[in-house]
């Protein structure tokens, strides 16, 4: 997994287009969900086989975001589902940039196919080196949003 700061930034950038603060939060929470649920299942079920891979698959994204959206207010559920799913998809796309030696950073079509998918651009352990870039992007976002609020 990439660090959650990188995932946070990857969701926060498109999140600036979402005006409603609660929906924006759901997009960001969505990007945390694949790892939280994957690790949660890993620790709760005490079984490392595949839990993380299922939460990083299309079926996992749809089921987990639907389950999560049921816990928000009824009027927010439909857009909430879409934004949670979008956040989870962004997470998986970021993870797919890792080079897992061709084994695949994600198995998108579980449980139907075990074929792994990855772009293979970056050593999985080196994602933590993206932290300075993440912080720079966050600083720019913060500045732009602050300026935008002043103009309004």
């Amino acid at each position, binding site marked *: 997994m990439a660090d959650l700061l990188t995932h946070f930034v990857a969701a926060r950038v498109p999140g600036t287009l979402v005006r409603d603060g609660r929906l924006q939060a759901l997009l960001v929470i969505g990007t945390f969900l694949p790892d939280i649920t994957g690790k949660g299942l890993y620790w709760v079920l005490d079984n490392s086989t595949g839990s993380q891979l299922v939460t990083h698959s299309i079926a996992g994204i749809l089921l987990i975001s639907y389950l999560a959206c049921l816990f*928000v207010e009824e009027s927010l559920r439909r857009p909430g589902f879409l934004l949670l799913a979008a956040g989870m998809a962004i997470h998986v796309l970021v993870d797919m940039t890792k080079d897992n030696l061709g084994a695949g950073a994600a198995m998108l079509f579980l449980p139907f196919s*075990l074929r792994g998918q990855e772009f293979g651009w970056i050593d*999985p352990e080196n994602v933590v080196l993206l932290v300075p870039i993440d912080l720079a992007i966050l600083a720019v976002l913060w500045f732009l949003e602050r300026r935008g609020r002043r103009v309004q």
Partner: protein
Amino acid sequence: MFSDRGWLLKVAATLGLLALVLSVSRRRIAIEYPHIEQMAFFNESMRERRVLLWGYKVRALDATGFQINTWVGPMQVLSTHPVAVGDYVTVVARPAGYRSVEALRLQINEGFGWKRPLNYGLSVLVLIGYLWLVRRRFRWRIQDGVLRGKF
């Protein structure tokens, strides 16, 4: 689909479907990608499978490769890739025999000892920090069984 009607049923059905996807996936993955520990019970049917080793520490070197520690004792990784004792490696391998796998692809994870803990530490901080910052955007009404928007 998104209404409050049959809320409990929807939650239960989604959980059931998720459990089904999990169990089918895990069963298939366990067959196609056996754990390294299963090499202690090697049989010929395993030969065409793939074993994925993430962040294992090289414990000893020998003429055919190197050794790693597992829950069931040391395992041999057959490899011509130069590694040193103490290196962390990620390997895609195929079963080669009793307690032995052959490396097909190998990557040395430099800085694994500090990058991985930093990754986890930072992730926990970001998660807690963000949830703390947005806590006021939602409020928990447990009596309704759902999170309600505050506004």
